[in-house]
């Protein structure tokens, strides 16, 4: 019988410092192995399984709490060089997000301006919010790869990256939950010239949640869409908000594990971003009507799987 927790320990060793391993991860796994094997040898197989689950939850809680505490400690002990490095990361990430946003809005804005319908500024105000949830994850990965092109960075720089990713996640959520629907509705009313009834894309997150269970809405407003599609839209707004955090973890893993071959890193990043958008597109095409929640979260699951695979490329610490 393989001892429980060894695979988990192997995975944790690729992400956690030697100190975290010795102080937090190893003691929890040692307790789990002892309790699990005692219960199993007494024939209490269900109790052993319960111990296995409880220990995994306990380990997750411990690592999160320890990470938070170490984060505060790292922030308090940051030197001038760390702050300079943080500023550099911030500039690269914000610059990359800005560049991707410009690339994405260039075509629609220029074609509208060519038709002399609206001025550039007015169009940008309408289009930029809709573009940001796509530009943020792509720009974040590009910015991190560029900022950490010489290696995985210090704990301080990783902390700054997660801080940025968290801020971008919150921004994406606010955009998709409230700002984009409002902006879409203003755009429709401006173009239509009169009051226009809200469609699914113009509903805020709360309104979308209510609409899922509202047959009247489905019949009157959204005749071509079914309730599962509304559910897919609802869950996608949540899952897209988590994308910056997951992609930041992936980019850090990539810069730590593939430090030498810069071209390989860029290629892997392009493939993974491609996988993300293909999973999102596939989910909308085929999964939205059958398994909306799974279809919405599938891209994030794919990124998590890619991060685990990249983390396993080379061992960071010797594990036993």
């Amino acid at each position, binding site marked *: 019988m393989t001892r429980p927790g060894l695979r988990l320990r192997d995975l944790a060793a690729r992400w956690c410092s030697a100190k975290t391993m010795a102080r937090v991860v190893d003691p929890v796994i040692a*307790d789990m192995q002892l309790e699990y*094997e005692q219960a199993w040898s007494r024939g209490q197989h269900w109790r052993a399984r319960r111990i296995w689950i409880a*220990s995994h*939850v306990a380990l997750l809680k411990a690592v999160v*709490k320890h990470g938070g505490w170490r984060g505060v400690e790292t922030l308090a002990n940051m030197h001038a060089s760390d702050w300079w490095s943080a500023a550099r990361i911030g500039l690269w990430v914000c610059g990359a997000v800005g560049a991707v946003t410009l690339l994405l809005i260039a075509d629609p804005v220029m074609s509208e301006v060519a038709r002399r319908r609206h001025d550039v500024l007015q169009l940008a105000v309408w289009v930029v919010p809709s573009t940001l949830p796509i530009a943020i994850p792509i720009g974040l990965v590009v910015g991190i790869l560029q900022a950490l092109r010489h290696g995985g960075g210090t704990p301080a720089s990783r902390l700054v990256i997660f801080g940025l990713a968290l801020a971008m996640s919150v921004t994406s959520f606010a955009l998709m939950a409230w700002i984009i629907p409002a902006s879409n509705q203003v755009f429709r009313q401006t173009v239509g010239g009169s009051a226009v009834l809200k469609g699914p894309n113009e509903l805020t997150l709360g309104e979308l949640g209510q609409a899922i269970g509202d047959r009247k809405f489905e019949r009157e407003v959204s005749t071509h869409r079914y309730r599962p599609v509304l559910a897919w839209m609802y869950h996608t707004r949540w899952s897209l908000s988590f994308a910056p955090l997951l992609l930041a973890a992936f980019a850090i893993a990539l810069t730590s594990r593939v430090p030498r071959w810069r071209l390989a890193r860029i290629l892997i990043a392009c493939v993974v971003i491609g996988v993300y958008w293909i999973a999102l597109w596939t989910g909308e095409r085929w999964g939205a009507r059958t398994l909306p929640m799974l279809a919405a979260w599938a891209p994030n699951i794919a990124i998590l799987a890619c991060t685990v695979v990249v983390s396993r490329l080379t061992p960071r610490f010797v594990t036993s």
Partner: protein
Amino acid sequence: MPSPHPRVLTVSPKELLILDLLVRQKELYGLQLVEASKGRLKRGTVYVTLGRMEDKGFISSALEDAPPGVGGMPRRLYSATALGRRMQKAWSGGTKRLTVEFAR
């Protein structure tokens, strides 16, 4: 670079509970601390608190050999240091004041 300012050592209620248990029982494993605390310490987060206490110098730990006949990874055995005992005495005795430890 060591800080030029003296470190102010404080004891949180959880740390005081752990110190109480360790002073009373001499040496305990993390899981035994959880059991002895009667629900006040949780099995996952107890190690975060223990790690912090080791950093402060209140406790020390040593790896013990795997239990005979069971195998598995070695467990960590915790005990209170002299500083930990002094802190426990000071805080439990009602003094409840901040102890300033100058740079060691």
